[in-house]
């Protein structure tokens, strides 16, 4: 079985790609990479296109190495990775929709983000007029006696993002769920191409609003990698502080919302109060409740307010005082446990195959956290644990969040203690040779990948891969055999981003 290093060495190494290597390979190496992904041992981190080539980011599970292999597509096609390794299916459909590059041998040639509404095809490749005879989108068939379909969305009953779910059910039991996403596709990668670093940073912070700090961080780290610049220690700590506050706020919100979807509103009411406390502390410390546009390439846009640390400490004290009673309430309420335990199971094998990050992966035995592996500053100097469970049900995903709330509380304390005076931003370099940078950052939902090519102060191409790409398909698997009424509960326990995957 080829290791990642073998694949990279089999190709032509690309200069000025940091911090991990990138190599241009031929069809054969590309195919052997695809087959190695299918065998296990290597995990797919991302697959994205450019006008006439495709890139694939790979993680070596044994060595924790990361690398990118690229394939030129002069005849506008490439060997399908999905033919070997299903997690690539939606990524390849997207590459075709945006760039017009065909995955030869793909098991699923249907469009993904392109709903036939853009008045053009292949907006980021060689643009074509829309095909006049665009066929109706075909959902996958489910055959059997007395099956019925339930179409849901794109406009849902709750205050959530738009997407379409097509259920096929036998009585109350879900036989198949098929997702259709792409409704919030804004063309962010198209807007980024040719924009300044500053404009692109603002767009990166708006890929998925709940992860605005994590996206800002992933983008900034990729720019800093491309330019090979180091960020001052105080800025690193402030970034981590914001990232942990974001994680806290989201996990608290999710724990309440999951219980609410099991009709247990009391948890929601209390968790929402704690979440609000975190957002208000963020507002007091950084001037924005969601801390948007604060992580910028080179450091942070503004220093923490003088009374910021106290505001944050006060919010954390509130959580420390009230959260344990809520955890006990969750654990001791039989009617709630009845809903969450053994509901919506993701098997460890599936989580591993899809390289699912975040609580989805860690609740199903995949011990992966980008703060540890590949790891980035300042986390190597901070003490924290990465909780892992293997049950893979809604309950396990709640417990991972509970444990991560505790870890983020401890991390925030360490950061506040370690905060020393100093500069919070360095300026970027002016016009230099084109260079490429890459980063993998742990958002609350999982690992976010950012890859970009800089040319002077302009972004030539930037790709941002949300953790949801590898979690959404697992939701389809998790709901199978469950009752329709448990779908909101399962969906909330995943809390995948629509906007993040639609881009």
């Amino acid at each position, binding site marked *: 079985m080829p290791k990642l290093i073998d694949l990279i060495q089999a190709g032509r190494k690309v200069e000025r790609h940091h911090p991990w290597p990138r190599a241009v390979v031929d069809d054969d190496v590309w195919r052997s990479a695809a087959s190695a992904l299918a065998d296990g041992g290597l995990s797919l981190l991302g697959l994205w296109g450019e006008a006439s080539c495709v890139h694939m980011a790979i993680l070596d599970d044994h060595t924790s190495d990361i690398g990118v292999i690229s394939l030129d597509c002069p005849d506008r096609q490439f060997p399908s990775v999905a033919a070997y390794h299903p997690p690539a299916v939606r990524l390849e459909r997207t590459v075709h929709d945006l760039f017009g590059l065909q995955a030869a041998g793909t098991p699923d040639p249907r469009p993904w983000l392109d709903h036939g*509404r853009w008045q*053009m095809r292949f907006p980021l490749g060689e643009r074509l007029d829309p095909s006049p005879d665009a066929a109706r989108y075909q959902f996958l068939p489910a055959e059997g006696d007395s099956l019925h379909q339930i179409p849901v969305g794109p406009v849902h009953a709750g*205050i959530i993002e738009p997407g379409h779910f097509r259920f096929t059910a036998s009585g109350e039991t879900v036989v198949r769920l098929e997702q259709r996403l792409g409704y919030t596709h804004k063309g962010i990668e198209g*807007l980024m191409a040719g924009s300044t670093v500053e404009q692109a940073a603002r767009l990166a912070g708006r890929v998925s609003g709940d992860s605005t700090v994590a996206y800002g961080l992933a983008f900034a780290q990729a720019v800093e990698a491309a330019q090979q610049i180091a960020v001052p220690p105080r800025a690193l700590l402030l970034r981590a502080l914001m990232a942990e506050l974001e994680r806290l706020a989201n996990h608290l919100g999710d724990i309440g919302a999951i219980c609410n979807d099991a009709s247990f509103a009391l948890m929601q009411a209390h968790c929402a109060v704690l979440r609000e406390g975190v957002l208000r502390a963020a507002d007091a410390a950084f001037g924005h409740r969601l801390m948007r546009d604060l992580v910028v390439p080179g450091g942070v846009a503004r220093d923490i307010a003088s009374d910021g640390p106290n505001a944050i400490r006060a919010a954390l004290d509130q959580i420390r005082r009230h959260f344990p009673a809520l955890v006990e309430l969750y654990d001791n309420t039989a009617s709630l446990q009845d809903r969450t335990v053994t509901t919506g199971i993701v098997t460890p094998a599936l989580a591993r195959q899809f390289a699912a990050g975040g609580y989805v992966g860690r609740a199903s035995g995949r011990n992966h956290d980008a703060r540890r592996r590949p790891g980035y500053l300042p986390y190597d100097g901070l003490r924290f644990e990465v909780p892992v469970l293997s049950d893979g049900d809604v309950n396990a995903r709640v417990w991972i969040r509970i444990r991560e709330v505790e870890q983020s509380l401890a991390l925030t304390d360490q950061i506040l203690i370690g905060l020393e005076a100093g500069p919070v931003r360095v300026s970027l370099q002016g016009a230099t040779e084109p260079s490429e940078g890459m980063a993998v950052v742990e958002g609350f939902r999982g690992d976010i990948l950012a890859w970009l090519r800089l040319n002077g102060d302009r972004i030539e191409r930037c790709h941002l891969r949300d953790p949801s790409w590898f979690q959404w398909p697992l939701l389809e698997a998790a709901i199978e055999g469950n009752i329709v009424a448990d779908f909101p509960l399962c969906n909330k326990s995943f809390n995948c981003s629509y906007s993040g995957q639609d881009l």
Partner: protein
Amino acid sequence: MRKLLLQGLFRQPLTEQAPRPDDAALAELGAMVARTARRRLGRSLSIREVDAGSCNGCELEIHALSNAYYDVERFGIRFVASPRHADVLLVTGPVTKNMREALERTYHATPDPKWVVAVGDCARDGGCFAGSYAVVGGVSAVVPVDLHIPGCPPSPMAILRGLIGLLEAVDADVAAK
């Protein structure tokens, strides 16, 4: 659980004072006040939220309106599951081309009288997404907008201020009939 419930009985409520309606928002309401409302709504507004391609930041803050600090239901404002039950559509996002039809159909499914409130900077004119091949560029390009609440995202207090302003305008409008 008993302890938590008892604490809830004896603790001071967290709910904060209502904000005064925003003057700027009220000025924007001018045009709307002139419109005819065919039935009295009282002080109750049912809202259907429609995400027309937002980054989900606005949704987070709209959610926050229901927490104990803002408790939006005390003003008679509630979020409903269907446009058929709604008086107001609260629309976020720059309106992606993939969401355009869904937004139009939601609008037409809402019975008259109805109002549309656009929330967030990108809901006004597409914001930083304007000019993209995939974006229409603002809610008013698709359905008529009565009130716009700016911000990226607007804070819950800003959204609440806008909605209370809308309520007062609706009241005044109906009383004048």
